[in-house]
Structures are given as C-alpha cells and as structure tokens.
C-alpha cells in the first residue's frame, strides 16, 4: 500500500493557488488588452481619454484647512503632489514610449505571479523546501526590482514630458519632484526577498545533503 504524505496547510495552499492563478489571469488579460488598446490608439490617432499619465505638481498660494471645534482655520500649502491626467490626445512618440515602459513593467509583475504559482504548486506536492523554489524566490525579487524601476521610470518620463506642456490655474507642473517620486518601501521589500532567497537556497542545499547522508 502506498503511503500518503500528509501536507500541513494544504487547504491554505490551495486557496493561495486560486488567488494567484486568478491574479495571473487578470494581469495577463490586462496586459494583452492594454497592448492592443495602445496599438489601436497608435494606429488610429484615437482619443487617449482612458489612459492616465502621471504628473508632479505643486499648488500655488495657500489654502484653508477647516478644523472642526477649533479656534480658527489653518492655512495649508500643497507640495510634492503626484497625480494623474487624462488627455484627449497625446503625441504618438510619447504614447509609444509610455506604453512600452508600462507594459514591460507589468510583464515583470506577471512573471512574479507565475513564479509564485510554481512555488505553491511545488508546496502542494510536499516539495516546498527545495533549491528550485529558492531560485524562483530570487527571480521574484529580481523581477520585482525590475517592475519597481520601470514604474518609477514611467512616472519620470511622463512628468518630465508634460511639465512644460500643461496649463492649469493655480497649479505648477514639475518635471521632477524628488519627494513626490521617492517611495522605496517596495524596493526594500524586494531586496529583503533576495536576502531571504539566498538563506532559503543555502538551507535547502543543506537539507538536500542531509537527506542524502546515509
């Protein structure tokens, strides 16, 4: 009789697999849709009202902050703001560059989902602590960093392109705003993942050696 290996948390792994497979599917469909939509816009000069372009801006002057139950109103200023604009039409060259960066970023994100699914698949079969999973984890970290870089690049490209072309009352558009742009939380998350993956790889190698020590 073949002995069945009990895998703890199998239901949870199954649930995670469903979530990640669904996320993979939605992201893949989104990327394909976005790529087709961008190509159609590029070829037909159609309106770009469904595409949001990031911009940095700063409000002119001061506003009033009404604080309830307080003695008086406070003043506020608007700095380091990051927002999105939609426009009827944008030049083709910029649209192509923006779309390529955007789609490339999401392809890396899709690769991360794919690798996570493969890790969970291995875990479902009771083979979680293996060198292959450590290498997959390393690639998730690397692709995550690539996604982060492309995402930041996309913001800079868009904001610098639009900064001298936009006019809006009492708003100054900036080509670059360091404090509006910077946000390294996810980058450190992915770097931490790289460290964890190396520890995972060494641990998995040691386990493999221990398993094959007679």
């Amino acid at each position, binding site marked *: 009789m073949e002995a069945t290996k009990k895998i703890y948390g199998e239901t949870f792994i199954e649930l995670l697999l469903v979530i990640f497979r669904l996320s993979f599917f939605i992201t893949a469909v989104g990327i394909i849709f976005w790529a087709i939509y961008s190509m159609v816009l590029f070829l037909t000069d159609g309106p770009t009202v469904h595409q949001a372009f990031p911009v940095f801006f700063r409000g002119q002057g001061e506003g009033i902050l009404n604080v309830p139950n307080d003695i008086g109103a406070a003043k506020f200023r608007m700095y380091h703001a990051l927002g999105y604009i939609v426009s009827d039409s944008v030049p083709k060259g910029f649209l192509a560059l923006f779309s390529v960066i955007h789609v490339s970023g999401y392809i890396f994100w899709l690769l991360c989902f794919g690798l996570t699914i493969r890790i969970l698949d291995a875990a479902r079969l009771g083979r979680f602590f293996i060198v292959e999973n450590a290498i997959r984890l390393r690639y998730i970290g690397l692709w995550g960093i690539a996604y982060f870089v492309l995402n930041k690049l996309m913001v800079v490209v868009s904001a610098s392109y639009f900064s001298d072309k936009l006019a809006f009352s009492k708003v100054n558009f900036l080509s670059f705003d360091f404090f509006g742009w910077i946000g390294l939380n996810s980058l450190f998350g992915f770097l931490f993942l790289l460290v964890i993956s190396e520890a995972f790889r060494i641990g998995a190698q040691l386990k*493999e*050696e221990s398993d*094959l*020590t*007679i």
Partner: protein
Amino acid sequence: MPIVVNLDVMLARRKMSLTELSGKVGITMSNLSILKKGKAKAIRFSTLQAICEVLDCQPADILEYRTEE
C-alpha cells in the same frame, strides 16, 4: 562522482542480499539503495562501521576513488 560505492560487489562476495544487510545494519532499504546506486552525498562513520562489521570488511572494500576522465 569519483567516489564509487562497491556495496553490491561486497554483498555478492558475502552472498548476502540487500534486505538481509538492511535488517542486520538497521538502515532502511531505501537508504541502502541510495548508497548502492552511488546517489548518496555523504556517509556517516557509524553507518560505515555497521556495514563493515556485518560484511566483515574494510571501508576501502566498499568505497573506491577513481579519477574522472
């Protein structure tokens, strides 16, 4: 790997089966099979000692170093 395990040769010389060795040494059949096929990454001194005792041989009779070509 340049280290060759000659367990099957010693078993044949002593006219002993792998199952019999497994029972006398106290190592599972699957582990002895890994060792016999040369897939093991390492062998404990205690295991080597037990095998040598049962087969009445020296470690060199079981393990051999061959240069890789």
